C-alpha cells in the first residue's frame, strides 16, 4: 500500500460542500454535509448502501439541486444549471449506473456531444483512434467501433470512465467505478487515478472495497444515514476502522465460519455444454449443500454459460438434475425444476426500475400471491415487509420505485425476489456488486445458510477474495472454457489468477481433456 503525505495545507479547496442537505419529498436523505476537496487529492467517500453517497455526488456535480446549503468552486459559491454546466467548469461525474447510448459505438459515446470534426464531417478515424487509446490506458482492449449494447457491464463501465476522462477536468468524481471490474482493470484504473492526482486533479472516489480505498485515498469521509460521521486522513484508518465507522459496529469478521455442508449427493451434473459463441465444452457437477465458485476474467463467458444452462439463451449439452436428464426450453422450466439464476445486470434484466418494490418483489412468483385470478395485495405487502426485514432493504418509503433505491438496495431486492421461488439450486451472478461491507456480510451469511439448509449455490464473482472466503470449491473459466479447479488449501488468489490468465496452460488442457 502506497502512503503519501497529503500536500493539502498550501492550497485552497477546489470544490467544497457547505452545509448541504437534500430531501426527496418529506424525506431528508442528506443532512448538513460540509466537505472540502483539494487539488491533487484523492478524497474517498464511504458509507453503507443508501447512506447518500451518490446523492451527495450528484449535488456536487449539478445533477441535483440541494435543498439547503451551497456548493463552492475555488471558494466561490456556484449554482449549476445542470450537469453540462458543471462539466464546463471542469467537474465530471462517472455515474454509478451506466449512462451510455446503447445503439452507438464506443467511440461515438466517448465523444458524444463534443465530436471531433474535419470540415463539416465528423472525424471518425481520429475519434476511434483516441477512444482506443483512452480505453487502452484503462487496461482494456475494446474495439472502438463496437456497439455499446454488445458490451458486458464491466466493459461499459470502462467506456463510461474513458468518456468522463475525455472531458477537460479539474475534479473527477468516480461513483463506484470498480464495482463490476476485476482486479486487473481495477489496478489499471487506480493507476490512472494516481496519474490524475499527480497532475493536480482532485478526485472524489466512492467504493465499497475498503482495501482499495485504503490504497488510493488521501482522505476519507464516512457517511452514515445521510450524516457526515468523520473525515480522516487515510493513513489513520485501517479497513476495519472504516467498516466500523460506516456500519456503526465492529466488523471484525466479513466471511462466515466455513462449514463443510457439502453432502455426497450430486444434484446437478453438466456435461459438454456449449453456448455458441460464449462457452465451450463445459462440464462440472454440483453437490447438495455445496457452494461452488466460478472465477474468471471479464468476458470469460461465465454469465453466458449459466444463462445457457437455465434456458435463457440457446445452448446444447447434457444436464442431469438429481441423476435424471433434463432439458430446459426456457427459464420457466429451470425455475420449475428449482434452479434460479440472478442476473448480474440488475437494472437491465433484474428489476423493473419504473415499477414499485412490491411489483418487483413478486414478479417471478405471482402465482403464489393469487387467489383465483386475483392478486392478493395484502399478502404481497406482507411479503414485502418480510423481504425488507430479512434482506435489510433500506427504503425510506414503501411506495418508492425500484429505480429510486440506492444501488446496493436494488441488489437486495433482486435477491429477495428470486428467493421467493424457493429454489434448491441458486446461481448468483456477481452477488455483491456495489454492496456495502455490512450488507456483504449479510449476503455471505445468507449464502452459507442456504448451503446449510441443503441447497446448492453457484457464485459467479469477479472478486476472488469473496469466492475464496465463502466457496467450497472454485472453477476458473478462461476464453469460454473451464480451465481449472481449485479447492481446499489451493484456494488462493495466485492459483486462480494463474488459471484465469492462461499462465498455467498445461493443467488447463489436462483438465479439459479429462472432461472430454
Amino acid at each position, binding site marked *: 500500500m502506497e502512503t503519501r503525505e497529503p500536500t493539502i495545507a498550501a492550497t485552497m479547496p477546489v470544490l467544497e460542500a457547505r452545509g448541504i442537505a437534500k*430531501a*426527496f*419529498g*418529506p424525506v431528508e436523505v442528506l443532512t448538513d454535509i460540509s466537505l472540502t476537496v483539494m487539488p491533487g487529492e484523492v478524497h474517498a467517500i464511504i458509507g453503507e448502501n443508501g447512506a447518500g453517497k451518490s446523492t451527495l455526488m*450528484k449535488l456536487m456535480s449539478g*445533477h*441535483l*439541486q440541494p*435543498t439547503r446549503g451551497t456548493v463552492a468552486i475555488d471558494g466561490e459559491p456556484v449554482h449549476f444549471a445542470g450537469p453540462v454546466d458543471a462539466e464546463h467548469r471542469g467537474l465530471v461525474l462517472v455515474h454509478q449506473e451506466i449512462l451510455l447510448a446503447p445503439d452507438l459505438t464506443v467511440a461515438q459515446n466517448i465523444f458524444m456531444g463534443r465530436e471531433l470534426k474535419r470540415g463539416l464531417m465528423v472525424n471518425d478515424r481520429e475519434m476511434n483512434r483516441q477512444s482506443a487509446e483512452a480505453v487502452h490506458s484503462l487496461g482494456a482492449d475494446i474495439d472502438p467501433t463496437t456497439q455499446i449494447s454488445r458490451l458486458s457491464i464491466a466493459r461499459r463501465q470502462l467506456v463510461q470512465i474513458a468518456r468522463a476522462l475525455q472531458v477537460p477536468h479539474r475534479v473527477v468524481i468516480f461513483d463506484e467505478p470498480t464495482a463490476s471490474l476485476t482486479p486487473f482493470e481495477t489496478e489499471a484504473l487506480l493507476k490512472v487515478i494516481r496519474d490524475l492526482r499527480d497532475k493536480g486533479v482532485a478526485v472524489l472516489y466512492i467504493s465499497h472495497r475498503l482495501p482499495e480505498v485504503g490504497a488510493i485515498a488521501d482522505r476519507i469521509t464516512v457517511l452514515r444515514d445521510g450524516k457526515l460521521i468523520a473525515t480522516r486522513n487515510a493513513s489513520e484508518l485501517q479497513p476495519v476502522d472504516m467498516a466500523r465507522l460506516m456500519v456503526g459496529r465492529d466488523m471484525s469478521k466479513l466471511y462466515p465460519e466455513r462449514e463443510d455442508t457439502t453432502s455426497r449427493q450430486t444434484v446437478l451434473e453438466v456435461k459438454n455444454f456449449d453456448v455458441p459463441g460464449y462457452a465451450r465444452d463445459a462440464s462440472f457437477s454440483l453437490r447438495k449443500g455445496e457452494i461452488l465458485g466460478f472465477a474468471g476474467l471479464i468476458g470469460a463467458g461465465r454469465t453466458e454459460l449459466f444463462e445457457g444452462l437455465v434456458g*435463457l439463451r440457446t445452448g446444447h449439452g447434457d444436464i442431469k438434475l438429481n441423476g435424471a436428464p433434463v432439458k430446459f426450453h*426456457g*427459464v*420457466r422450466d429451470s*425455475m420449475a425444476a428449482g434452479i434460479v*439464476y440472478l*442476473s448480474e445486470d440488475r437494472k*437491465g*434484466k*433484474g*428489476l*423493473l*426500475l*419504473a*415499477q414499485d418494490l412490491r*411489483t418487483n418483489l*413478486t*414478479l*417471478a412468483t*405471482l*402465482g403464489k*400471491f*393469487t387467489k383465483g*385470478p*386475483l*392478486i392478493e395485495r395484502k399478502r404481497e405487502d406482507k411479503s414485502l415487509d418480510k423481504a425488507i426485514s430479512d434482506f435489510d432493504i433500506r427504503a425510506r418509503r414503501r411506495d418508492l*420505485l425500484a*429505480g*429510486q433505491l440506492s444501488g446496493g438496495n436494488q441488489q437486495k431486492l433482486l435477491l429477495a*425476489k428470486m428467493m421467493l421461488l424457493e429454489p434448491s439450486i441458486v446461481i448468483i451472478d456477481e452477488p455483491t456488486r456495489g454492496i456495502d461491507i455490512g450488507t456483504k456480510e449479510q449476503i455471505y451469511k445468507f449464502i452459507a445458510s442456504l448451503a446449510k439448509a441443503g441447497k446448492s449455490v453457484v457464485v459467479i464473482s469477479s472478486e476472488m477474495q469473496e469466492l475464496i472466503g465463502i466457496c467450497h470449491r472454485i472453477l476458473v473459466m478462461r476464453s469460454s472454457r473451464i480451465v481449472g479447479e481449485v479447492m481446499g488449501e489451493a484456494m488462493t488468489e495466485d492459483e486462480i489468477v494463474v488459471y484465469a490468465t492462461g499462465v498455467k496452460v498445461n493443467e488447463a488442457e489436462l483438465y479439459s481433456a479429462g472432461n472430454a
Partner: protein
Amino acid sequence: MSDTKTIADTRGFGRKFADLDKTAVAPFLALAALFLLGALVNPNFLSVDNLLNVLTRSSFIAIIAVGATFVISAGGLDLSVGSMAALVAGIMILFLNSGAIDGDTAMLAAGVVVALGVGALAGLLNGTIITIGKIEPFIVTLGTMAIFRSVTVWLADGGSIAMKSIAMRNMFRPVYTGVFLGLPFPVWLIIAVGLLGAFILYKTSFGRHVIAVGSNEDVARYSGIHVNRVRAMTYILQGICVAIAVVVYVPRLGAATTTTGMLWELQAITAVVIGGTALRGGVGRIWGTICGAFMLEIVGNIMVLSNIVSEYLIGAVQGTIIIIAMLVQRTLQKKKA
C-alpha cells in the same frame, strides 16, 4: 403533494413516474374543460339527451380502446382494429343471414359468439405473426389492416352487408338504443368493459405481466414470464374488444359497409394516449382511455353544435382542440406538481 421536489430536480425515471396520480387525473380535468367549452358553444350541449347520445356513440371507440390499452401497455400497437371491426361485423351479419339456427334469439346469441370468435382469431393472427415472426407490430397490423379490409370488401361484393331479417333487426336494435336504469345499454357496456379491463390489468397476474413486458421485456423474460404468450394474449384481448364493439355497432345500422371502422385505429390509439398511457409501454390507464374516447366524441359533437367555423375548417379546429387538450393536461400536471 409529496413529490414536489422530485419533479423539479430528478433526472431519470424518477421524474416520469413520481407524478402517477396527477397523470391519472389530468385527462378528466381536460374533459371538464371540454364540457365548459361545449356549454359555451351551445346550451343544448349539456342536455341529458345530447350527452347520452355522445356517450353512446363513443362506446365503439371506448371499448376498442380498452383493448388497445392492453396492447400498448405491453409495448405493442394495433393498426388493424378498424378493418377488423368491419370484418367481424360482416361475418357476423352473414352468419345471422344464413339462418343456420332456428329461433331468432338463439340465432342472435350464436351471432354474438361467432363475432367474439372471429375477433379473437383475428387478434390471434396478429399476435402470432408479431411474436413468432418477430416483426414490428406496426408493419404486421398495417398488413392485416389491408387484409381484413379487403376480405370485407370481397365478402360484401364491394357494397354492404345488411341484416336481411327485419324481425331479427328489430329484436337486435335495443342493444344500441335500449335504456336500462336511465342509461343506454352501450354505456353500461362501456362500464362493464372498463371494470373488467381495469380488473384484469390492475388486479390479476396477467395484467401485472402485461405491464412488466411493456416496461422491460428482458426483466420479464428473466423473471420467467412467457413474454410472447403475454404479448399475443393482448392482441387476442384487443380482438375480443373489437368484437364487443361490433356487437353494439351492428344493431345501430344493421349493416357492415366498406367504410365501417375506417380510421377507428387512429381514434383508438388517440384515446389511449390522451388517457395517459404512454406509447412506449409499461403504463396502462383504463379509465383514462375511456375518458379519452369520450373526449374525442365530444370534440366532434361540439363542432357540429357550434356555428362558428366553416365546414371546411372543422378538421383544423378539431386538431387544434386535441392538441390544446393535451397541453392543458400537461400544464395541469406541472401546476399540481
